[in-house]
């Protein structure tokens, strides 16, 4: 079986919407740690998880911590492979341009956005993972 000297491909799958439950917020904390341990991390937003990347979220009237601002800096935390399911967006009436940026390209300074993929493309990525963490 696998030796831990290989870089592990680890995928975090987010399928739940933010704020109504803590799953998205605590999944984010896991993403940051996995990236810090030099694993090859991908994050995939499916189903209601796509709501987590919507621009313009403001939790001030809820009184809860605006954790989602961390999504705008994922690239700074070495999390670049961020994917969103195309059908999930469509089914929820969300346009790709409504998605938050996840950081800036370190060379060009251009904003980086999550990649929108089809089911099949996401499935292919899942095949490459050593571990898939669902929240």
């Amino acid at each position: 079986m696998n030796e831990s000297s290989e870089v592990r491909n680890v995928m975090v799958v987010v399928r739940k919407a933010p704020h109504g439950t803590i799953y998205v917020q605590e999944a984010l904390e896991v993403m940051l740690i996995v990236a810090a341990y030099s694993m090859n991390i991908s994050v995939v937003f499916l189903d209601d998880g796509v709501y987590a990347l919507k621009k313009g979220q403001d939790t001030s009237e809820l009184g809860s911590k605006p954790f989602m601002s961390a999504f705008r800096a994922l690239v700074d935390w070495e999390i670049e492979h961020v994917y969103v399911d195309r059908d999930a967006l469509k089914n929820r009436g969300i346009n790709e341009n409504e998605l938050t940026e996840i950081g800036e390209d370190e060379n060009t300074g251009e904003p980086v956005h999550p990649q929108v993929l089809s089911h099949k493309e996401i499935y292919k990525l899942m095949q490459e993972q050593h571990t898939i963490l669902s929240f």
Partner: protein
Amino acid sequence: MKLSVVVLEGPYTHEASDSAYNLIQAALKKGHEINGVFFYHDGVYNVTKFMEPPQDDRHISRRWMELGEKGIDIVVCIAAGLRRGIVDKIQTSNVRISGLGQLAKMILESDRVIVFGD
């Protein structure tokens, strides 16, 4: 196989803790190694020492404590724990509180990681 198990939900309310425990027992019976158990989200509620279920029902924190006694690393996430008021002094014995880095280590050291949640 070296297996790590992640439990994301609290005891009794969700079946996750039972499914995880039963799976671990089956894996041990088959001679596999449990690299560790990591409690996250409400899973951190699984190992408090003041749990008092009815006499004729399973005692969930005691079960985890007994697995811990066998040498299995039972870990409660400190961030998720503190947020929910789960601190050292209310933990049952043979479990420990540690950071998310421990989950990362479990992933690095295991052949398989399985998540039980809702």
